[in-house]
Each structure stands twice: as C-alpha cells, then as structure tokens.
C-alpha cells in the first residue's frame, strides 16, 4: 500500500492524500475532514495515524483539506460555506470512487469536522456511516446538576471564593484561548437529522471527550441531548472522560483509532483477502 497525493475537485482546488490498500476495490471508503483549522494530517497527526491503520485493515481512505483550509484553495464558485463543504466532500467521494471503486462512504470529523460531516451525512445518500468526535452537544439539566451541584457543596471551593472576594477579586490568570469550537445548531434539527440518518440505514459512532466539559460531562448526556434515537441499534456512543479534546496523549489517540477501527469492522466489514 502506498499513499498518493492528489490535487482534485471541480476547480482542482482541493489537496488530499489517498491511501488505497492493494488488491481488489474496497466497497467502503473512509473520508476524514479537517479538525478546526489544522491541515489534513489532523491534530498531532491523528488523521495520518487513523487513515494508515484503516488502510492496513483494508479500507481505502482520503484525508483532505476543505476549501481554503490547509493546502486547498477557494473554488471561486460563490457558494455558501455549507454548500461548499457539501461540494468538496462530493469531490472527495468521487475521487475515492474513481481510485478505489468505493460505493459508500464513512465520514470522520472532530469538532468542526464533526459538524461538517453531520451536514453532509444528513443529505447525501452515499454516506453510510459517520464518526462524530466531539460533535454537537447541549447543556442539559443533567449536565448542569452534575456540573454545579458538586461545586455548590464543596466547602473548599466556598473558602477559595470567600478568600478571593476578600482579596479584591483580581486575577492574573490569563484566559486560555479557544482554538476549537463547534457553532451550535438547533437541537431539534440535529435530532431530526440523526433520526433521518438511522432511518435510511446509516451507522453512527459518537465519541465525546472530557475536553468539552464546558458542555458535556457524562455518558448519559448522549440520551439527554438527543433523546431516544441514541437507543437505536445503529448508534454507538462512547464518552471518554479522561481524554482531552484533540487527543494529545499518544495512548489516548491509539485507543481512539482502535475504537474507530473496531466500530468500522463491526459495521462495515472490509472485503476479505485484500489486505496484509
């Protein structure tokens, strides 16, 4: 197996790396979308490690830069960002279909990548599966109880608060600068999208990390956020409280990659006898 670099797309404006296992064509191709503004290799090279491990398991993959991100340029087509994302992923699916004969696709995205994967998955019938890493989330009542109640009952926290007030309330702690963030979409709309996705046979894998504790803090919150569609057998969820948002520790990253590989193997078994 060797990776190939491509400039592709309707305006030859996109750049991506395809990995196609040796042997016969693969039915299911995996496409990995940008996480935030990080170019196609992904945070700490997550997308490289993921796509290569999936190639070893027999899946054709494409990691690429959406328009204006990484090494990709603008298409100049005057589309809205949402339309552009759909057009770019359409170009990516066409490339992987041409190179590896893929007929169906699984999209993988972290943060804004999950949002973009969601947008395409909600409307494109070629998308048969999606892995949403820290995708849409909402502060539910359960979230607030889990978040605020322990703090309200913690005497040490009260003592710190009172000392702080007595000392004038100043702080020299610089606020951390958010790099990744997912713009909210109406919750009912997201639930309807999920329902539509599983209704047409899609398989979903939602993996949320402890790195988004400002809006998500327990495995139960999948159900609290999205309701009964989370109980559908086509939906798999995983909450990894110990990890950060971008999987900076290599052990966490390896476990995430293994988890995605396992989910794919269970839901989209690769063609047999075509990989090492």
């Amino acid at each position, binding site marked *: 197996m060797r990776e190939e670099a491509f400039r592709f797309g309707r305006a030859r404006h996109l750049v991506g790396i395809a990995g196609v296992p040796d042997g016969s064509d693969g039915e299911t191709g995996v496409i990995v979308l940008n996480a935030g503004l990080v170019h196609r*290799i992904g945070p700490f090279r997550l997308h490289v490690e993921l796509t290569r491990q999936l190639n070893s398991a027999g899946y054709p993959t494409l990691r690429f830069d959406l328009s204006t991100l990484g*090494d990709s340029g603008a298409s100049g087509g005057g589309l809205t960002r949402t339309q552009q994302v759909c057009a770019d992923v359409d170009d990516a699916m066409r490339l992987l279909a041409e190179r590896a004969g893929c007929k169906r696709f699984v999209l993988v995205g972290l943060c804004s990548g999950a949002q973009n994967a969601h947008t395409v998955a909600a409307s494109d019938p070629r998308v048969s599966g999606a892995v949403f890493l820290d995708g849409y989330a909402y502060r539910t009542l359960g979230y607030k109880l889990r978040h605020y109640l322990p703090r309200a009952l913690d005497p040490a926290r009260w003592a710190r608060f009172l000392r702080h007030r007595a000392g004038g309330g100043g702080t020299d702690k610089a606020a951390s600068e958010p790099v990744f963030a997912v713009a909210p979409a109406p919750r009912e709309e997201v639930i309807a999208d999920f329902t539509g996705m599983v209704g047409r046979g899609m398989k979903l894998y939602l993996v949320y990390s402890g790195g988004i504790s400002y809006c998500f803090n327990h495995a139960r919150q999948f159900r609290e956020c999205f309701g009964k569609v989370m109980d559908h057998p086509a939906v798999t969820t995983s909450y990894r409280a110990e990890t950060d948002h971008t999987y900076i*520790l290599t052990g966490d990253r390896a476990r995430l990659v293994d988890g995605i590989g396992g989910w794919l193997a269970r839901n989209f078994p690769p063609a047999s006898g075509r990989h090492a």
Partner: protein
Amino acid sequence: MRNDPELPFFFGAESGLFGMYHAPVSVPRRAVLMCPPLGQELIRTHRLYRQLAQALAAQGVAVLRFDYHGTGDSAGDSAEVDWNRCIGDAVTAAGELRSRAGVDRVVAFGARLGGSIALGAADRARFAEVIAWDPVVNGDDYVAALDTMQAALREDADRFSRPRTHADVAEQWLGFDIGESLRKQLMGLRVAPPNVPTLVLDSLPADAAPRWEHLVSRRGKVAAISPPTPWNDLRRLEAAILSHPLIQAVSGRMTEDA
C-alpha cells in the same frame, strides 16, 4: 500532467517524502527549500509556510515545502523521526527542488528545528544561503523546555478534567511519540556555523534570546522581527503561528538576492 501552480507529490526513496511544489509564473532563476520544524511546531507553522511559499512564488521564486520521514504526510511513524534522517531528507528535497525548478541556486528557509536542519544540511545540500527563524542552536535548552511543557501538560486543567499519570505522558513531547535516539540527538545538538551566508531572524522574547554570534560572525547577520513568537506557551499550543513581518523579511531578502 497539468501545470498546477501548487503541486502535491511524493518523492525520495520509495516515494516516502511528501512535498508541495510552488511553481512561479515565470521561469525561475532562484529557488527556496522550506524546511519545517518538528512536532507541534510543524502544525502551527503550516499556514505560514504556505503563505510564505505563495509570496515567494509570486516574486518568481520556485519553492518546495516538504515533510521529513515520520512527520506530516510523509511515510513513517512519529516515533521514527531521526535527526540524521531529517538532514538527509533535506538534502534529498534540495535535489528534488533543483530538478523540478531547473535551477542550481537554492536558498534554505527553516523555523526553529527546521532552521537547525537547514544549517546542518547546508554543505551537503549545497545551499547558497540559509535563512533561519529562531533556530534551535542549543539542544539541551530545547529538550529542557519541551520536558517542562510536557510535565505541565500532565496536569493542565484547561485540557484534562484530572491530572494524568506520569506513564500517560511519558516518552512524548506535546502530542508526539519520541524515540530515545531523537532525544539523545537533540540533547547533543550544537549547531555549527555553516560555510554559507546566514540570516537569522530573531523573534524570541528578550529574556530568551540565545547568543547567535557564533552562527553569524563570519558570513551572516541577525535581523529582529516582532512581536515575539510564543513558541513555548502551553496555552497557545494549538494556535497557528502567523507572522506578516516574517513573510516580509524573507521576501525582502529574496528580493535583495534577485
């Protein structure tokens, strides 16, 4: 093959190195090889490297960006990054650039360890000049800074809900596995002055400025660019490093060179 102004491709032994060639509009007479830094600094400077490459291509310079073995889109695992191989990859990339651009005169640019690699490869790669942005000249200090940040990362409350174990963060630097050999290689790193003209672009904070004199005493100079670049700020670890002054400084130097 179409003549795309920016062409991604693989080259080198077993086609394992990723490159992005920026072809200028006119027939080039000069070329710049952009040597990336390692680890998270490679990701943080990716956008800036692209912007600089485009600026240089617009002024008639052929540019090659590339990734060393074990980094970026190139073959190999992160733990396989090896200093000597990085130097060798820079030499290979210089040859690839000469071949694609049809020019012999190649200037190397590199940020941080990319600058150190460019300096280390200068003779073998026959660079006409090296432009090094905050190069790492003393490996001990660099390793110590990375170890300090990695230790702080373990209990970074902005990242983890509770501190991680020492084992969780061992043998890594800020998101990347490191092999024992790379650690030793970097600890022993002392960048010697190259036999070519050298321009050091200095954007380190005033209290962190190393002594560049030994690098530039004979055939080089130092130019300060501001504001200081936050290379070692854990809170900005995933924020891109962008610098218009850097682009101006390198573009300006290449204009002088025309």
